[in-house]
């Protein structure tokens, strides 16, 4: 991707989000990121906001600053997400609301505000995060998978709503990657999950970056409403 593009990434404090910051800042993009906690370390082209992705007022304020500072937004990567592995019979509503709030409401809010900014220049690339837990229908991940199924529907419909503005909307569905998101999942569950993949290994940040790089290229302007699952699920 060309230098000077303005890239917004959510959930950048660690894991895949941080790897994406390193990748795009290293390529000369102006990267804006956010997470609930401060970002440790510094990158020359990186600016961080501490906020909850479901906090409409804080999110709108951040987008207002991006518009005033950069005048545009080229790429949004909705990486922020939370998971909770639990049987449905033991899942409290507070956990359901938290998961839906971050994974679905946060993704919707960022898509909406990003598209408002992107349509000024009739150009934009949005990448959302799904999961292999949706097609694999994993027991114990009902709420997490449901929140990501909602993200997939959102992605496919926004792709149509935003097409006239020159904005593409796609999603990536990572296989398990060794980050905090799967920290609470028992190893035997993860092994069983990986056995159901065509390629039987954990995903890595570079696998995710490879797919996102494809989606956000200017030349990918005829690719929208698609979901790519990693690992051959």
């Amino acid at each position, binding site marked *: 991707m060309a230098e000077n593009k303005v890239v917004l990434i959510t959930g950048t404090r660690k894991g895949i989000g941080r790897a994406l910051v390193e990748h795009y800042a290293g390529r000369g993009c102006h990267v804006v990121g956010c997470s609930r906690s401060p970002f440790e370390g510094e990158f020359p082209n990186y600016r961080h906001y501490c906020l909850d992705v479901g906090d409409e007022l804080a999110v*709108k*304020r951040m987008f207002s600053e991006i*518009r005033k500072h950069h005048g545009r937004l080229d790429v949004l990567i909705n990486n922020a997400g939370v998971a909770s592995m639990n049987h449905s019979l033991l899942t409290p509503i507070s956990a359901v609301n938290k998961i839906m709030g971050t994974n679905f409401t946060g993704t919707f809010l960022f898509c909406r505000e990003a598209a*408002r900014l992107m*349509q000024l220049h009739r150009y934009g690339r949005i990448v959302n995060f799904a999961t292999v837990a949706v097609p694999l229908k994993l027991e114990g991940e009902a709420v997490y998978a449901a929140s990501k199924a909602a993200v997939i529907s959102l992605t496919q419909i926004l792709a149509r709503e935003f097409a*006239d503005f020159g904005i593409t909307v796609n999603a990536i569905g990572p296989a398990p990657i060794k980050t905090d998101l799967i920290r609470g999942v028992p190893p035997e569950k993860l092994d069983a999950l990986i056995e159901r993949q065509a390629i039987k290994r954990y995903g890595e940040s570079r696998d995710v970056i490879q797919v996102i790089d494809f989606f956000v290229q200017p030349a990918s302007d005829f690719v929208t409403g698609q979901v790519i699952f990693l690992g051959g699920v």
Partner: protein
Amino acid sequence: MNDPENIVTAIYRAVDWINGELPPDRQLIKAPETRLVGPQSVLDSMHLVSLIVAIEREVEDTFSLTLTLADERALSMKESPFRSIQSLADYIGILIK
């Protein structure tokens, strides 16, 4: 600061922007009575969405506040505030009062 004249001026800036997106024979006239919806409007649904977003942006820049024009209140009103530039300016005046 938030007098009716400033509100209409902010709307006209948004109209200037949307006119850049419209063909020359479908320009939106900067006048209070200009219709924004219905058969007399030059806007299709996508351009109406873009205009509302542009007006929200101009209001934010002019009055340093964020507002949502197409909310439940606006959509449930007996007479749509999006009928004309004047009716929309009146509605914005109520929102930011």
